[in-house]
């Protein structure tokens, strides 16, 4: 059976020049197919620049798409498939990096910056809350009154 599948895969791959998801790759079961799409849109095509295998036209991407679908048909879970691919190709294949010691800073940095920025603003606002603007002196007050009078005169 395994050999048969292998042969089938080989046939699929060699049948035509490869392109991003092709009609003959699609699974019959729409549920499985949509899982396949969502998994493969988070896998990096290893030979392209920053493209997911779902978008890529490279032959390797096609092989991987077929592989993902085959595993889904065999009943594998999403994580199982991802783990399998990471074992084979390394973390590089995941477009969404896993949470680990290596990616701790990556995932937390935006939120730390937001919290730190928010806290700094809060502190400055607190410090400033006590401050008052200098009161107007006599000449400034006269000037202001004159301006206000002028504004009243031209009011709509």
């Amino acid at each position, binding site marked *: 059976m395994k050999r048969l599948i292998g042969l089938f895969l080989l046939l699929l791959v060699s049948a*035509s*020049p490869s*392109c*991003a*998801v*092709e*009609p*003959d790759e*699609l699974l019959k079961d729409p549920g499985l197919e949509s899982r396949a799409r969502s998994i493969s849109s*988070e896998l*990096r095509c290893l030979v392209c*620049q*920053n*493209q*997911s295998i779902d*978008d890529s036209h490279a032959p390797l991407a096609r092989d991987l798409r077929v592989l993902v679908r085959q595993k889904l048909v065999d009943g594998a879970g999403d994580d199982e498939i991802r783990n399998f691919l990471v074992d084979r190709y*390394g*973390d*590089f*294949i*995941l*477009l*969404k*990096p896993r949470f680990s010691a*290596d*990616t701790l*800073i*990556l*995932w937390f*940095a*935006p939120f730390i*910056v*937001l919290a730190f*920025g*928010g806290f700094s*603003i809060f502190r400055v*606002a607190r410090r*400033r809350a006590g*401050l*008052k*603007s200098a009161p107007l002196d006599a000449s400034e007050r006269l000037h202001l009154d004159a301006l206000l009078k002028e*504004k009243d005169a*031209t*009011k*709509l």
Partner: protein
Amino acid sequence: MIVELGHFALIMAFVTAMVQTILPMWGAVARDPGLAGMARYSAFVTFALVLLAFVSLTLAYIGSDFSVANVVMNSHSTKPLMYKISGVWSNHEGSMLLWVLILTVFAALVAVRGGGMPERLLASVLSVQGAIAAAFLLFVILTSNPFLRLSDPPAEGQGLNPILEDPGLAIHPPMLYLGYVGFSVAFSFAVGALIHGRIDAVWARFVRPWTLVAWIFLTLGIAMGSYWAYYELGWGGWWFWDPVENASLMPWLLGTALLHSTVVMEKRDALKVWTILLSILTFSFSLLGTFLVRSGVITSVHSFASDPTRGIFILCILMLFIGGGLVLFAWRAPMLRQGGLFAPVSREGALVVNNLFLATSAVAVLVGTLYPLALEMLNGNKISVGAPYFNMTAVPLFIALLLFVPFGQSLAWKRGDLLGVGQRLLVAFGIAIAAMIGTFAVTRGGPVAAPLGLGLGVWLIMGSATDIFNRCYRKGISFGIAFDRAVGLPRSAWGTALAHAGMGITVIGISATVWGVETLGVIRKSEPLSVGPYTVTLEQAFKRSGQGFREDVARFTVSEGGALRGAVETSKRIHLGREMPTTEAGIVTYGLGQLYASVNEIMPDGRVSIRFYWKPLVTLIWGGALVMGIGGALSLSDRRARIAVSVKNRKSVLTKSGARV
């Protein structure tokens, strides 16, 4: 001969840029008006020389002078004129020359418009511009010289990469560079202000138009690039979170923050220190973007290592200007006087929140872009950071910020009334919620994200409408007066409203992508395929040849509910002398949506393997950006921005504005 002239002009430009750097700064510090006055003339001369160099290279391209290595590698004698010209900046050397040209254009424009500026400030601003130009001119001359001749010239050039053979190349890079480089003016102004230790609302008034110009071009440049990728790359995506895209998004985010904080400074003389820092950081991100794209460090650490001269050179420029700017900031910023006070709930307070979110999202994009590189250098582990990361970090920040925008727009300066603002926005909020629920009801069972995003877009548009409405209309006044007041509103008010509404339009376009329909199929002649509301039928598949290429074309007719709507063609194109075929997508626009066809393969038996998308409202993504750009332009034409023209005009405008209500 003309090439040697250009080469010589480039070297001379370096010399005059050095003059522009040293003498005016000396004059500004030593208070020598004669030396400070050198700033303007040297800026003009440097610009003229770089222009001469650029024109000579362009002429070499137009005349297909294949004794020049750069022309050989990027042009072909049979290219149409437009692609010969845009070929100039299709490559590293030429695009760096364009970069420097735009830098000197900005310096020359500052010199022209600087009549009303304090002489010392103008001198130091132009001096810093000169220093940046000198550094990049040296970079071009030493590591990326486009004028090198070949001793044994070939008869024909190697041609342009077919993907670049597109009107997009003619427009996209110059626009993007106008944006990137435009932020250098804000940087120079910040450094000038730090050197003088003096910064106030007048400074903000001078600097704001330049920031706005840069922002407009960057906005349009990014949108243009996005549309280009959308139709050229052939799989219908419009944003890929690619490092090169991120490199342009980061300065945009910080530039947007800068635009808003400059307003606070101009109106209320507050946020001075932060605005100065932001001016330095925004241009730093532009430089970083240039470094990322130009050094090749992102595509592969190894390609960078194999030819490190260019990368290390730009890295040195980067450290010189970013480091120098920040050191100067750390040293001088504490001496700046505190500005106007404001309550936490106020327009100023809202703009502080705006800046916090924009700056944080820029950090998220920065971290995501550089992290794989840093990690690999650190411990050799290779990871990828792709779209899912940015969708989980930067996008929530954007959404939070956008939810907040209409409030900020309606708050009063200095001390705002949140309750009052809430009441005024009630109608806008109601409409947004109604739009959301209505859409949800109509598309029941469909994805939830789309109605939510649509509601957010409507909220932004209605928030802007509310702002304009409240500025013009008050209970008891007639519509005639309200109309007069609407006409009489400062153009910057309309500009703000349009720009925010434009953002709303883009948000709607982005949300609607969730409703996109994708259909894959292998079909025979006359066989129909349904794509969303349309039915496409393969009319014929045929071969065709054009200028410099031949292609396999698949032509489809499009009908809707039995009625013929039109036709669409997509092809696999093989360019002469290139092996890799490119996919030419076929796009037809119906209403605000687009039907997007991309051929996989045309089989020998006449069957066509095809991919169709129906993308409802997709044009709003770029249409919104266009509206944002128009809003920016309107704001730029406000009399506030024109005030800086000259002392004489300023006087008359001031008296006029004094009489305004």
